[in-house]
């Protein structure tokens, strides 16, 4: 994973809120995204977002979203290596049952690269380590 320029890690919930106009947090996430100049998207999160948009909302538009995310100049799509997968698995074993492997990957990346996760998932948000002196936090809360 190359984290040189990134300021944040994107969770599925933040991207979904941006793409779905009716979503309760659509305007909140727009405000947050307007302050971010570069972000990292784990490939597993990308797959999750595209899967739910494709199956649950509109397959044609999901393809449009996929193309825009993959060709975005301000988003780095990060894949996890085999070695990292072992580390994530070790972390996952220690986490609550409601945290799935994708969430565990985000928590692992957050800790390893010291990047905040942009998320509306309350459990995930409560588990990420937050800086104590941040005055303009990028974290989203419900």
């Amino acid at each position, binding site marked *: 994973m190359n984290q040189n320029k990134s300021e944040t890690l994107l969770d*599925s*919930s*933040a991207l*979904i*809120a*941006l*793409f*779905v*106009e*009716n*979503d*309760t*947090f*659509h305007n909140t*996430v*727009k405000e947050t*995204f*307007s*302050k*971010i*100049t*570069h*972000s990292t998207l784990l490939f597993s999160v990308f797959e*999750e977002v595209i*899967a*739910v*948009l494709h*199956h*649950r*909302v*509109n397959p044609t*538009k999901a393809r*449009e*979203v996929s193309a*825009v*995310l993959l060709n*975005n*100049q*301000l*988003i780095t799509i990060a894949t996890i290596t085999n070695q990292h997968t072992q580390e994530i698995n070790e972390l996952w074993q220690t986490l609550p049952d*409601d945290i*799935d492997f994708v969430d565990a990957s985000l928590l692992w990346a957050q800790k390893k690269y010291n990047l905040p996760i942009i998320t*509306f*998932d309350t459990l995930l948000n409560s588990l990420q380590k937050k800086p104590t002196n941040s005055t303009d936090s990028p974290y989203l809360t*419900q």
Partner: protein
Amino acid sequence: MMLMPKQNTVSDHRMQIYLPRDLYALAKQKATQEKISLAEIIRQSLEKNLVPMQKSKPKNLLESLASVTGIFKDGPTDMSTNLDKYLKEIYESK
């Protein structure tokens, strides 16, 4: 070939460039057709290629995702907060 600026101003930059013969002939032909100078043809060609590149560079994440922001007009209002529920529905339907 010398490229002369449209109007000389302090900020204009004078330059000399070499063009391949066939490209020069094409540019000259276009300039004659449009009744404008060769320099103007070259300026227009550069602007056409370079200005869109400059404009397309987004300043932030919202700008970079503008074409797909709110693209789903009729999605559920709780999708971002109940994503696991929707993923579960998908897995169960398979």
